[in-house]
């Protein structure tokens, strides 16, 4: 459902609609004419960093949030592009720049009540007047000097701005906060670990599975006070279902502690969370990867959809997790209806739908100082935050995917803040088949792949699907592709100098034409090695990713631009 007052031809919130289907009713671009698509205009942001997220289109204007320093740039779509109107530069605490984990990315903005609202890396949420480019309010939510940053795109619904924090690597404790969209004032804040009172768990909390029912699991599923450094941050996407009045989001990995140091399930890390949109009360939760030992964050989006399941239409959320399983979950009760691998995985043999728990493969557990070989997926996950799309016409989900495995073990010298230590050496490499990525269509009612396009590199860009039955996505080596939603046939592609890690959108221009827009600018976690020849010092992730991605610089280079396409 679109936000009230939004036009179908606009793109006013990150996922197009509250349920983040990334499905547009626009149908002028079709499977038969998409091959004629031509670039209309482009704009270079001047920042050679990972350009995640997507632009917005509201009332004949387009809005782009850049990576750090998080400028907001407005364009007039009624004139030949790029017709830049203004640029807003937020006040920003530069200490945040050194703190962000994996790249200094930003995943976009939401429009509400005449304002463009987005998060700045230093933990401020800002609202900027969409016409004048003047700041309306700014709310500082955390101090970056303590490790927290903000990279996610806020969702605005019912006059509230839902935002979450990043920085689980720094021992940050994750939260979701609702701000007043008009004033920026905090309405409520709910933590993802800790006592029930701080998690907003009360008598209306009804998790489907027994392991999450006892009181204060956010404390008792940790040792001592470890939950205080528990991670479970919220750097992915927030979705909303008006009918049940629930907001959905996923939580990141349990904070800095090694698995051996934090026995227990470590709730509510790596979990789906469903909260009352007005009060923030937790209504249900479901943990994807109890006692995560692989860095399988659960932050990926929860797409709200009504799909056929066992002969009836069910109201569900669909989630493609880093751990390799795709979950179809009853969005009112939290019952998992389907949990099937959408990429090759071997850390579990399946998910027991009675207990809700994965059936673990003991020899694929990680232990510091011990060699564990061939764990699939790698800690980059079978998919990261780059969001999928859902077409109500085909009833299919279209998702990017990563096919990497890893060896975890050995020891190598590392250091931080003057302190040397030895840590695990993580080596990543292509999974079975040799292709490191895939873009695929998924039937969430049966848990089966319908078609897939193998890609050389992990697909780190989001998906868009339209009523013209065309699906758009980009690759890390810089191809922007249009494929047939029904069978995956590639209908059109173009090439950028830098790879794509952003999410395509479509909109209706003031001239009545249907446009498609996407960022170029490789970066983010797996792409972070491209801007330079030195490996990063991120021990678990990027160092390992460097091995898997070492030929990427031969195929693409750093960059940062917006590209807009139209039929001639």
């Amino acid at each position, binding site marked *: 459902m679109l936000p009230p007052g939004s036009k179908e031809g606009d793109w006013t919130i990150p996922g197009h609609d509250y349920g983040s289907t990334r499905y547009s009713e626009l149908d002028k671009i079709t499977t038969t004419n998409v091959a004629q698509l031509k670039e209309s205009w482009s704009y270079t942001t001047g920042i050679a960093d990972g350009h995640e997220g997507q632009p917005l289109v509201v009332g004949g204007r387009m809005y782009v949030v850049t990576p750090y320093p998080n400028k907001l740039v407005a364009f007039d779509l009624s004139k030949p592009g790029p017709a830049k109107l203004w640029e807003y530069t937020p006040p920003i605490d530069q200490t945040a*720049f050194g703190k962000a984990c994996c790249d200094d990315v930003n995943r976009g903005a939401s429009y509400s009540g005449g304002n463009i609202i987005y998060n700045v890396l230093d933990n401020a949420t800002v609202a900027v007047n969409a016409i004048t480019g003047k700041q309306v309010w700014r709310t500082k939510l955390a101090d970056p000097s303590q490790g927290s940053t903000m990279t996610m795109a806020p969702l605005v619904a019912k006059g509230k701005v839902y935002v979450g924090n990043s920085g689980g690597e720094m021992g940050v404790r994750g939260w979701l906060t609702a701000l007043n969209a008009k004033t920026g004032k905090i309405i409520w804040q709910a933590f993802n670990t800790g006592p029930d009172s701080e998690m907003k768990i009360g008598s209306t909390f009804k998790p489907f599975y027994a392991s999450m029912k006892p009181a204060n699991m956010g404390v008792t599923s940790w040792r001592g006070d470890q939950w205080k450094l528990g991670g479970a941050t919220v750097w992915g996407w927030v979705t909303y279902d008006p009918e049940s009045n629930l907001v959905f989001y996923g939580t990141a990995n349990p904070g800095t502690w090694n698995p*051996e*140091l934090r026995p227990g399930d470590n709730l509510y890390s790596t979990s789906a969370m469903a909260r009352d949109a007005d009060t923030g009360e937790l209504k249900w939760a479901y943990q994807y990867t109890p006692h995560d030992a692989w860095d399988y964050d659960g932050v990926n989006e929860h797409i709200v959809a009504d799909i056929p399941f066992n002969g009836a239409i069910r109201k569900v959320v669909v989630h493609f997790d880093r751990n390799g399983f795709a979950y179809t979950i009853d969005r009112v009760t939290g019952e998992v209806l389907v949990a099937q691998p959408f990429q090759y995985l071997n850390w579990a043999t399946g998910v027991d739908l009675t207990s809700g728990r994965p059936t673990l493969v003991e020899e694929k557990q990680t232990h510091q100082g011990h060699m564990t070989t061939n764990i699939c997926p790698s800690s980059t996950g079978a998919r990261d935050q780059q969001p999928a799309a859902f077409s109500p016409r085909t009833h299919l989900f279209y998702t990017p995917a990563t096919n990497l495995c890893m060896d975890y073990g050995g020891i190598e*010298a590392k*250091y*931080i803040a003057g302190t040397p230590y030895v840590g695990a050496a993580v080596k990543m490499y292509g999974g079975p088949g040799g292709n490191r990525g895939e873009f695929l269509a998924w039937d969430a009612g049966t848990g089966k792949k319908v078609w897939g396009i193998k890609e050389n590199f992990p697909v780190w860009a989001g998906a868009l699907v339209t009523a013209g039955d065309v699906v758009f996505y980009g690759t890390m080596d810089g191809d922007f592709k249009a494929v047939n939603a029904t069978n995956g046939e590639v209908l059109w592609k173009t090439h950028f100098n830098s790879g794509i890690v952003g999410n395509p959108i479509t909109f209706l221009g003031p001239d009545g034409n249907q446009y498609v827009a996407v960022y170029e600018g490789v970066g983010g976690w797996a792409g*972070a090695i491209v801007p330079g020849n*030195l490996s990063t010092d*991120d021990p*678990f992730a990027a160092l390992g990713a460097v091995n898997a991605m070492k030929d990427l610089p031969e195929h693409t280079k750093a960059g940062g631009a917006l590209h807009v396409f139209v039929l001639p």
Partner: protein
Amino acid sequence: MAMLVMATVGAAGHPLPKPLRVCADPNNLPFSNDQRAGFENRIASLLAHDMGTTVEFSWRPQIRGFVRKGLKAGACDVYMGVPVAFGPLLTTAPYYRSTYVMVYRAKGPVHVRSLDDSALRSLRVGVHMIGDDYQNTPPAQALASRGMTDNVRGYQIVDDYSKPNPQARIIEALERGEIDIAIVWGPFAGYFARRSPTPLTIVPVSPAKDTSGQLFAFDIAMGLRRTDTTLARTLDTLLARERPAIHRILTDYGVPLDSAQVSSDSIHGE
């Protein structure tokens, strides 16, 4: 940088006094701070002086991403104080070797000498948290492998940077009696123990090598871009020449030096 140095050598016959450009943490005593009061600041100045030039510091917290955002981005040419064979960098010969240590109140009941001392199980133990996913200090892991998790408390090594010496929180916790023993990297312990109003005892972590092969002592070197071999050779020569002066600086700061001989072999070139 290597190419620049070669070019200037070729043109003038001897190196021009270009500043020694060092990336350093602005708030991380005893190693460095932006008042140049750390021992790494002093060692860098000493080496720059020997090169006939000055030192130019680029300040950046040495936390996740610092190599990519500092050295790789061209903000500096050298990191002080990295472990030998530190993955992303070329390292010079080591110029000191220290060890993780156990620290406790001198006038208290604690007299632990070894990680295998059963008394440790009933004590409240503080360790530093590294701040990267699933990577922790050797003592933290060694405690877990001995089944000690309930009595272990983590302190963020990257704590609140708006306060001075954020890494000292764990020593303050010891002074306050919040923990009974801290197991931390030697240079922190040596420096803050000297300044503590509470007399503290420092003993090296024992056994020096854990059954898993985990080490507690490290050779410390300077880190450079992998291509900067010319500068690395220059620094190797100076580090060897200045060994007595460097030893004096380290002693001034109370750095516990490991008795094992620092290897004089440069390992760059791998």
